[in-house]
């Protein structure tokens, strides 16, 4: 069967084809100029959703990285104080040993006691350390001076104005890390204030034992300080573990985010060689269609009727 091909038929079909080629050309050109593979939501809804999901994950991971950095900075402040406290404790134990030595005189004992008292004052100052404007050993009462020494010289008691609050940061939906050590736990230990585990109380006891030449008191305080020193080492190790954990999470999240970014880029960025090839193909198709339209409608039988 022969199909009739009236003149309008050629024109309308060719015009439709031309419009589609131009539309595709414009779309590809937009991809090339913007560098994006998905220019309109309707181009690739699934790809768009994937990009958004990746973006959300990247953003959340960045938040967790930032939280990790904040936590690490806060723990670093605590860690530095704990190191100094360790040195002070070492010195206290040295002084205790000196006090227990057989050669110590009343005068030398008093001199040692003076240094012990100075160390005690330093320890209280360390307990009142501020970082970024807040007291890091006050529990959650971070704007309150946590340790206030008792009145007068050779005070034996301190007042703790902080609390036992733990400050936590979220490092993932299921992982939290405590960024502080409450002063009560660090300085008073599990036995609480005034007990054998109380660093400040035992330091005062050592000082008073030396002042009073009470060898037994010095011995007891010395032994308790040894135990406290061991506990402090455990705290330092615990804080170190937490810092290492944050650093490991940091590395993991950074790598994961890099992978997500690469994946996102694969979907969202235009494939330039492919796009430019497509542009060339569309250009050739447009030229060919234009030539065809021009030639198809160039002549009719009327041109040959004289």
């Amino acid at each position, binding site marked *: 069967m022969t*199909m*009739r*091909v*009236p*003149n*309008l*038929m050629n024109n*309308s*079909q060719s015009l*439709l084809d031309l419009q589609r080629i131009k539309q595709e050309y414009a779309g590809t050109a937009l991809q090339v100029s913007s560098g994006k593979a998905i220019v*309109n*939501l*309707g*181009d*690739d*809804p*699934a790809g*768009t*959703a994937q*990009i*958004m*999901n990746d*973006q*959300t994950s990247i*953003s*959340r991971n*960045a*938040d967790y990285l*930032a*939280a990790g950095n*904040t*936590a690490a900075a*806060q723990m670093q402040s605590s860690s530095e104080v704990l190191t100094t406290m360790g040195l002070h404790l070492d010195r206290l134990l040295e002084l205790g040993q000196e006090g227990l030595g057989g050669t110590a005189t009343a005068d030398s004992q008093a001199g040692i006691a003076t240094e012990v008292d100075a160390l005690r004052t330093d320890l209280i100052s360390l307990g009142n350390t501020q970082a*970024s*404007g*807040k007291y890091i050993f*006050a*529990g*959650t*009462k*971070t*704007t*309150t001076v946590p340790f206030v020494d008792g009145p007068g010289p050779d005070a034996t008691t301190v007042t703790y104005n902080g*609390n036992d*609050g733990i*400050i*936590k*940061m*979220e490092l993932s*939906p299921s992982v939290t890390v405590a960024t*502080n050590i409450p002063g009560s736990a660090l300085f008073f230990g599990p036995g609480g204030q005034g007990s054998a585990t109380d660093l400040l109380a035992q330091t005062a006891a050592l000082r008073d034992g030396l002042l009073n030449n009470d060898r037994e008191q010095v011995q007891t305080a010395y032994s308790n300080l040894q135990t406290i020193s061991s506990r402090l080492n455990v705290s330092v190790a615990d804080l170190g573990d937490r810092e290492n954990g944050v650093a490991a999470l940091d590395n993991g999240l950074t790598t994961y985010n890099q992978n997500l970014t690469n994946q996102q880029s694969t979907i969202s960025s235009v494939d330039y060689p492919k796009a430019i090839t497509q542009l060339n193909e569309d250009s050739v198709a447009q030229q060919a269609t234009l030539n065809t339209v021009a030639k198809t409608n160039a002549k*009719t*039988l*009327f041109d040959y*009727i004289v």
Partner: protein
Amino acid sequence: MPNLTSSLGVGLSGIQASQEAMSVIGHNIANVNTPGYTQQAAVLTTNPSQNFSNLQFGSGVNVKAVQSLRNQFLNLQLTQSIAGQSGSETRYKGIQAVAPAFADDGTTGLNTQMDGFFRSLKTLAGNPESTSLAENVVGSAQTMLTEFQSTYQTVTGQMHVANQEVAALVPQINTLTTQIASLNYQISNQVDPSHDNDAIDQRQALTDQLAKLVGIQTSTDSANNLQITLDSGAATLVSGGSAYQMTTSGNNLQVAVTSGNVSTDVTGLITGGELGANLDLRDRMLPGYLTQLDQVAGSLANQVNTVSMSGYGTDASGKPVKGVPMFTGTGIDNSNPPDANFGHVNLKDNSQPASASNPPNYHGIVNSLTVNPDMVAAPNLVATSCDGNSGDNSTILKMAGLGVAAGTVDTKGDGVGDSGPFSSVVTAMVNAVGTQAQQYNATATNQENLTSALQTQKTSESGVDLDQEAAQLLSFQQAYQASAQFISTISQLTNQLMTTMTSAMG
């Protein structure tokens, strides 16, 4: 035996028939580019023969009819395809107009701004004593609301555009139906209603234009009247020589068709064409996006407020104060009479927080949402702690945790979070917008292909082919010349006979 005079009549009939046929060809050529024009052809038939001495002698030719090569079934398909195509194209354009507002490039977009808000909460959790970080929370909350409201306004703006389109389309539809009814009257009053070709073509062209504007069904009665009803069959637009006018009323234009004193509301009963698509966009598709925006923003505000009010912020002197709502806003109870099953969520004082016992009506809440002005004036009111201690960040952490929590978005309006996290719901919404755009683009392209194929078939069957017209013109030109030559010959014979007779008589 026919005499010379009757032979002249035979020749004359040939000239007349050729002339009439060439006139038809001329009409075809003149209308080669006329939309909807159907190629016409002169139908020639021999004149009745004459009996002379028991012999039948032909008496020439005449044009019996001028016929169009029309395929009614094809026209019916084409009309429906045009309505489907324009409906899909209009829906696609409507979605495409709002799609950029939903796009998220990591710098702008709902998810980006929600992420920014929850990030500000997490950052504050790292330093809950910080006034500047609390200010950052307030700023991020405002930016997030601005993004919601901007998206919301884009959608409502497009609904307004659709409404204006409805207003513009109805008069055009009425004009077309009136013209079609007039042509119906003209065609049906012809002696032979099936042969008023040009009027039938005009009517078909107008019907195709009408189908582009509104989804219709057509049928033809015995008097060749074109009957037109809405595609749902809900109302008649044209019956015989009568056109039934469409009317609009109200701000959110309701469309009715009036027949006599009876007015039928057809607002939700038109599927195809630009009118059906614009009504669908205005009343169903775009409001669907608004509902989802209301649900996400309303749920977010409600959830954040609930956590905020369970904690403590601080006043200007740093003294702990009970948490206040972070967001204020009210839903619009647009049911009339008010629906007893829906509470009127008032986030301002949280006197009626959304809950299972007080199901929320978040309709329109995006537009009314603001950050609590008290908190804007005093950002330290942002609740960070559960006990009033400056360093406690448990409340702000809980608030930040809402960003990744499931079951935070109430999509069923029953006061219970059933979907989430917020970002997943927004991503699904954006995906739905993109999928709908893709779907209607594909449908429009398919319908365009179908329309093009049907149009091609129609043109192939009924269009004017200039080569064919030229060939026929040559053919009838030669026939005309031959008939003229025949008449000339008969004339010469008659003259010769007359001369001979004159000489004989002289």
